[in-house]
């Protein structure tokens, strides 16, 4: 192997570490913000690192079959693979975080992200806990809900930029010196509404509802399994945010911009979630198939007929 390969492998690792760090920190920040809104002090920002580390250090004594091992492994695989195909920074010469982002596109990413959910779902299914199954059922149903406005928004972008790849959309934004959220605002709104569901914060947290489902799919996952799930969840959060930033906010030219943009974006579902009650599954599906879808359709029409 030549030097370039080694450096790119290092780049992979750096990306993963970055995603993990940012994702986990965001988790801590969310907890802190939640606490502050609830007039609490809240845990330290680095609390989630403790949690994940502790979970990794726990022993894992029991399993319910080999799918329980593979489930979290699938999830991590999916999250890391998706990360590989996301342009973290938009500089063309950027070397460290380039990874494989010229070799995939949006549709590929959509499916790759589902891979993780499906793996998780299978792992949860293997445990035989009815709560897990219920959670999976809810989660997948809800996914069908938010995918529609999300895809509508993406279609609007693709039609406008005549490109289905993320780098293509970023190049378009750079070339036109604008952000897609201003270019096709309707699509952005639809995507934002879909994003609420994507992060599974309230009011769309019926999947994990701890009070009724004893945390749903994760209910039989302790120790390392849970740690892996949290890891992949954190990375996924970063992936989604980075994707949003890339396609709607023109990407980020350096890490600080990235952090700022993703953080701002992240606050939308978080803040909306903290003050919201919980929807039932069919309510959330109907919600997503209502206004967000309509706005998405309008967004597509806007792109087709106005632009």
């Amino acid at each position: 192997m030549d030097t370039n390969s080694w450096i790119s492998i290092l780049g992979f690792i750096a990306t993963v570490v970055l995603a993990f760090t940012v994702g986990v920190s965001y988790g801590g920040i969310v907890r802190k913000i939640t606490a502050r809104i609830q007039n609490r002090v809240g845990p330290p920002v680095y609390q989630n690192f403790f949690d994940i580390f502790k979970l990794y250090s726990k022993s894992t004594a029991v399993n319910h079959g080999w799918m329980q091992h593979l489930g979290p492994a699938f999830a991590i695989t999916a999250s890391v693979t998706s990360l590989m195909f996301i342009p973290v920074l938009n500089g063309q010469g950027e070397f460290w975080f380039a990874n494989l982002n010229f070799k995939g596109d949006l549709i590929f990413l959509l499916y790759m992200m589902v891979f993780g959910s499906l793996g998780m779902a299978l792992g949860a299914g293997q445990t035989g806990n009815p709560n897990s199954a219920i959670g999976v059922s809810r989660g997948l149903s809800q996914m069908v809900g938010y995918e529609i406005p999300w895809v509508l928004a993406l279609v609007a972008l693709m039609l406008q930029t005549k490109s289905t790849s993320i780098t293509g959309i970023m190049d378009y934004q750079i070339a036109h010196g604008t952000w897609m959220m201003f270019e096709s605002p309707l699509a952005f709104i639809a995507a934002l509404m879909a994003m609420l569901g994507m992060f599974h914060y309230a009011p769309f947290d019926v999947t994990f509802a701890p009070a009724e489902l004893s945390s749903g799919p994760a209910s039989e996952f302790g120790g390392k399994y849970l740690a892996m799930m949290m890891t992949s969840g954190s990375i996924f959060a970063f992936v989604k945010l980075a994707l949003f930033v890339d396609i709607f906010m023109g990407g980020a030219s350096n890490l600080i911009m990235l952090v700022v943009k993703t953080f701002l974006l992240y606050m939308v579902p978080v803040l909306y979630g903290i003050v919201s009650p919980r929807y039932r599954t069919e309510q959330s599906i109907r919600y997503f198939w209502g206004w967000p879808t309509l706005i998405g359709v309008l967004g597509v029409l806007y792109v087709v007929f106005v632009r």
Partner: protein
Amino acid sequence: MNSLLLIILILLGGAILAYLSKRISPMLSSIVSFLAITSAALVFFFLANDQEIVKISLGDFVLEWGLNAYSWIFGAMVMVMATLASLFSIFYMKGKDRLGYFNLNFDLSVMAMMGILFSLDWVSFFIFWEIMTWSSFLIIVYNGISEGKIGIKYMIFSAIGGYAMLLALVVTRSQIHSFLITDLIHSFAGFSGNMQALLGLLFLTAFGVKSAVMPLHVWAPRAYADSPMSYTAIFSGLLSKMGIFGFGIMLIAVFSHSVDGTIFVYREVLAWLAAITSVIATFYAVIQTDAKRLLAYSSIAQLGYIVMGLAIGTKLAVMAALFLAIMHAIYKGTLFMVVGAVERQTGITDMTRLGALIRKMPWTFFAALLSIIALAGIPPLGGFVGKWMLYESLITSDHYFLIILAFLSSTAAFLYSFRFLFGIFLGQEEKEFENVKEVPFTMVLPMLIGSLLLVVFGTFPGLLFKPLASAMSFLGMGDVSWNMSMLSNGWGDHVDTLDVINSVVIIFVLVAIFLGLKNRKRTRYVSTKDIHTSGEIPTENENLTYAVDFYKPFERAIAPVMKRKMDFYYNKFGEGLETFFDFLRRVYTGNGQTYAFYVIVFLVILIVFSQQIFF
């Protein structure tokens, strides 16, 4: 001897031999059938080439058979999957009665499919088409489920399709005095607009029935579900592809010669119908509790994608459709075999009762997992390649609302994909299935081969692109560029499957080995009764399975769409017709005198109106 004729004869002979050898031993019958299909497959792959032409003169017609790039790819698919299914069938059908009857029809179906693919003229096409229809009908009624009604439904719809084709082909002949398919292709442009519209409608109806496009799909779910699974593997995987094969010829080769705009409308309408089919069928698949039904509806949905691709008709779309067609044959075939294996070992396919077979039938689960991943279109397996190309083609050809329907359907497909795996292989262990064993090797092998193929084609889709490209250029689409492992759309975006699979595999191996397997060594298996139940210890008979109304919330959300089934309208229509017929036949009053009266009245009418009638 001509290898095409040889293939047909081997299959025909195999069918008859299989029927006769049942007298000696039922098992022998299945083995004979398997051997016949295998040897036909060998002949196909090693001897058949596109130079050969068979000409058979029957009556006043000359039947012409030949092989071309387009039919070769379908033929290869048929032969491979039929071989796998028949291998699977040996043990699956063991111990069932009337095996001779089953194998006869099995081989006849395969023969008919090969015949359709070889046909260069419409007469032999139609002959084989109908052989396929009735042989599959006879297998549908073989299991004797559902009071024979589903067989009738299948037969009616097949007849509608078949007769539409017959009508189309006699009309064609009256126009061009030839039954050759190539002649139709070349002279289609010369037809009048009305004739083009009529022929288009008829042919699309004909192929639409077999590929279960929306208003003509009602036969499919039950027909797929009620046949023996080893047959459904080719019924859903291959027989339906014959409709796709026909669509390919029609939509690409024939309609592209149309100068009128009518055909364009057909394309759009067909694409929309296919999209709606895929959405509705997916919804129905989601709410099924029987694994067979689930897969049956899923088949309809998948066929919807394929038809959509063909209807869009850009290079990428056609490539996607054909690729998906082949993938669908493989993974749906494998999945039906999986269900067959489960059915054979447990006796049921009801997902509300099955569960946790993963420990009992790990290989079956493995095959099912890979197939489901492919079915759901998740990278890196073969299904993804097809779906990616389909979506890209939809976007690049400005079908921006179709893509939403396609996405809705494919996202909802995750629901039933999970349901399938969960319902059968995961979840709570049931005491009922304590002693279930893995199926015999000859049943595992075809499933594993099927899933292996998915992996291979997912990694190197170019293996399929190559023959597909030549098939498409045969159909008149010109040169199609392709790459061994690079997918690209018209806008210059691309996905590198090799990179995808590399990264997935590497990361997965890393994660699985260093985290998962390490855990596994230290952990101890506990039964699925040992779960968090708020400290309560579940008793032996306590049902902890969440299986009934699995997607109830989703069901509630989509309730408005599901209010009426298409069946309902057809049944009402049928009932109305029958009532009308019942009314009509009352002219036969049973009174001899009335009949005599009819005679006199008829005579008088004839005489009175003789001026109008006979001059």
